[in-house]
């Protein structure tokens, strides 16, 4: 019923959409996949009215429509569940759900909160969320917020006649596995009421959920695959135009580590309620993967090693020396590098250029008496740009303007160039496309070969299994089981999940 015919979109110098045909049927879930820059975002913006196409038609039930803005699209039944959650955190759930549509509850200029709460309750029931609509949104978990967001879009059902099309943009990126399952069950259930367009990086998820999958490359739809005929390898091949081989995780490059000495030693370390009684050693050249669900304590362990959290019990040794003062400065001084999950917040300083970002953690090495040696900084930056293949016009480029993968490389270069030999990687491949992911895997192997000890919190279990020498499973802050990850003897997904949940 909703259809794009030969839709074109130009930006100066870019042909972002090339004669795209796209169709959503009633009660259908349509998947949309493609690499970074393939045109997915542009297509979605055209669909929900943020962009107006230069050519082609948008039709609903055969009638040509033209949206000037997202609100008009909404009035035609097209809703968007945003990737970066669009809820306002200091408002209550019901206020969020009816944001901009409060008028229906206004009597004599006053909002009838009871009526709004009731209506909100009805919306929340659609997504099977049993919470008080007067809860402040910031008190909800990410998964709950995602559902509230969905409930908000589902209010369209009451507001408009006709069918609903709901876009889900990376809805699973902040969810744990079981929450994803929950969401999928819900979405399948909701196909009674609406059609969905599902965009995700996680190919397996797209495959699992979608009835049909549109594959985009370079602004064009290169294939449409039905659920039953879908095959991950084939789709990935179409997306990237190259084979994603079995050597994806560079297992052949996994070399045994030096077990004789320990870079980091945890001896029965506890940190408040975050984690309890954790012990392990990290050796040079070892990739140690912490596996667990969201909130299981993985991040807190990383933050302790870097010095951002102070443990409440146990001893932490770095390179044989017991750590007594926990501060980021001392972490850096001990050669610990930390690549946090939110690159935008904690990874790079937008507004500072490439070399400034790279030397941020090691300015004393590039200055004397407080005066910077900018020449040396640039020379170092150029070396690393070449070494890591960072795509940037020059060292003066504002890092905020680089793509996610290249930002990640800059952060890596920052720590590696500073001689960090303990690297803490928190979801280093999150939000990267396949090509960029492979670059990161390559870098991990390279660092490992150079004797760097790496503690990894991986984006997926496959990644964890593929990359690591050692896997520690953690559940609710407590150690569960240690797996050996030597190639050929790697644990299976099932082994891990069994201990995680």
């Amino acid at each position, binding site marked *: 019923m909703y259809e794009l015919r030969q839709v074109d979109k*130009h*930006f*100066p*110098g*870019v042909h*972002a959409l090339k004669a795209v045909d796209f169709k959503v049927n009633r009660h259908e879930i349509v998947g949309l996949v493609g*690499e*970074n*820059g393939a045109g*997915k*975002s*542009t297509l979605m*913006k055209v669909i929900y009215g943020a*962009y107006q196409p230069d050519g082609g038609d948008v039709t609903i039930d055969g009638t040509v429509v033209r949206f000037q803005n997202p609100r008009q699209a909404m009035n035609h039944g097209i809703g968007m569940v945003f*990737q970066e959650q669009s809820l306002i955190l200091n408002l209550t759930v019901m206020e969020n759900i009816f944001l901009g549509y409060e008028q229906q509850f206004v009597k004599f200029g006053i909002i009838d909160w009871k009526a709004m709460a009731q209506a909100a309750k009805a919306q929340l029931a659609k997504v099977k969320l049993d919470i008080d609509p007067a809860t402040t949104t910031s008190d909800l978990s990410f998964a709950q917020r995602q559902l509230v967001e969905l409930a908000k879009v589902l209010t369209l059902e009451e507001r408009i006649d006709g069918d609903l099309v709901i876009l889900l*943009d*990376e809805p699973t990126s902040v969810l744990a596995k079981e929450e994803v399952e929950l969401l999928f069950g819900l979405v399948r259930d909701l196909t009674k009421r609406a059609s969905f367009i599902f965009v995700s*990086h996680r190919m397996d998820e797209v495959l699992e959920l979608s009835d049909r999958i549109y594959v985009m490359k370079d602004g064009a739809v290169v294939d449409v695959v039905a659920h039953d005929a879908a095959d991950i390898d084939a789709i990935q091949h179409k997306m990237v135009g190259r084979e994603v081989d079995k050597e994806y995780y560079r297992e052949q490059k996994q070399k045994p580590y030096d077990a004789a000495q320990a870079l980091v030693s945890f001896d029965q370390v506890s940190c408040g309620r975050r984690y309890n009684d954790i012990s392990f050693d990290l050796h040079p050249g070892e990739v140690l993967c912490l596996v667990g669900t969201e909130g299981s304590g993985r991040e807190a362990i990383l933050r302790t090693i*870097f010095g*951002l959290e102070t443990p409440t019990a146990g001893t932490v040794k770095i390179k044989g020396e017991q750590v007594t003062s926990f501060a*980021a*400065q001392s*972490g*850096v*001084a001990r050669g610990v590098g*930390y690549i*946090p999950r939110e690159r*935008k*917040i*904690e*990874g*790079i*300083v*937008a*507004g*500072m250029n490439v070399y*400034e970002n790279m*030397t*941020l*953690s090691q*300015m*004393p090495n590039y*200055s004397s008496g*407080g*005066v*910077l040696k*900018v020449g040396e900084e640039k020379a170092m930056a150029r070396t690393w740009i070449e070494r890591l293949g960072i795509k940037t016009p020059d060292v003066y480029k504002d890092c*905020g*303007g680089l*793509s*996610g993968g290249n930002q990640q490389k800059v952060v890596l270069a*920052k720590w590696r160039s500073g001689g960090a030999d303990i690297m803490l990687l928190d979801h280093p491949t999150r*939000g*990267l*496309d396949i090509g960029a992911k492979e670059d990161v895997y390559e870098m991990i192997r390279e660092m490992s070969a150079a004797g760097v000890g790496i503690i990894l919190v991986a984006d997926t279990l496959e990644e964890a299994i593929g990359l690591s020498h050692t896997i520690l499973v953690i559940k609710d802050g407590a150690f569960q089981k240690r797996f050996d990850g030597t190639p050929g003897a790697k644990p299976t997904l099932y082994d891990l999940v069994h201990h995680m949940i």
Partner: protein
Amino acid sequence: MAEALLVEGMETRIMSDITAQTAPPARWLTRERVIKWAPLLVLLFLVLLFPFFEWLEDFREAKDHIYLADSRFFSIRNAARIAIAATPALMVAIGVTFIIIMGSIDLSMEGTVSVCAVIFAFAFLGWGGTLASWAWLAIPLALLVGAVVGCINGLVHVRLKIPSFMASLAMGFVGTGFALLLTGGDRIRVEDELFRSLLTVRWFNFPIMCYVALAMLLIAWFIQSRTTLGRNFYAVGGGEELAHASGLNVSRVRIMGFTLAGVFFAMGALLAVGRIGIAETATGNNFMFISITAVVVGGTALWGGIGGVWNTLVGVLIVNVINNGMVVIGLPNYVQDGVLGLLVIAAVVLSTDRKTVSFVK
């Protein structure tokens, strides 16, 4: 992944707004560039605008007037006058630039300037009253006082965790009160010819104080671009969390920033005394408005991380050119304040990429 495309999409979309989707855009005219150079363009525009009004006035009266060549505004002598008016404000504005780059704000300038000016004058007169005696020590003393006030500012802000605008505003009042206590409301005249040569002796048409200010500007530029401290200001302003996670001592950077700002405020006080020959509690008056305005008009972002001392130079010149030019073209005084306000808004509009800032609080 979407974020990369999103940013890209935004830029291209903005571009398409400008070029109306017709001609292929010239690569050098990016919005980024326009924004970067907008303050300077505004300055140039103003410098050409005021002579135009002069020309128009003479044209109406049918007098001979060659545009620019016969302009009184567009003359070396007037340039020197604008420069003299701008130098103390420039020092103060440079000081606050560092703070704003850090994403904080310092509103203590009026009090700090007053207190430094008054202590300088007392010490100067008390120790001999001429630069040729030990009284020259009053100059480093004043800079030290500025540093101390700034340092206290920083300590109050960082250690007591009080928002910088509140901490510094309060410190400013303390400074004004202290200056009043010292002077009891009197003015102190500094009449030493040697010290006043800052104003009275000219090299190449410009008085010495302009060269002193230029030297300070270059020092500030050096600090900004070539020292770890300067780099740290940008890091803290661009991402405080990240700066912390990169092992920077953010508290120390902040305190040093406020201290440095205090030194520049003191420098502003010295030049203000050099210009007027009077130190009093009112010496610091109006510096808050002019310095913050100049910094913002120059294109330094109030949320930190972007901008620098050259932007501030342009900003200070814009404000002073406007002030001078409005009198020179004989704009009625009741219009002047309104025009200044409008021009400030226009300059900020031109120099800020508001598309990247979704909400302004």
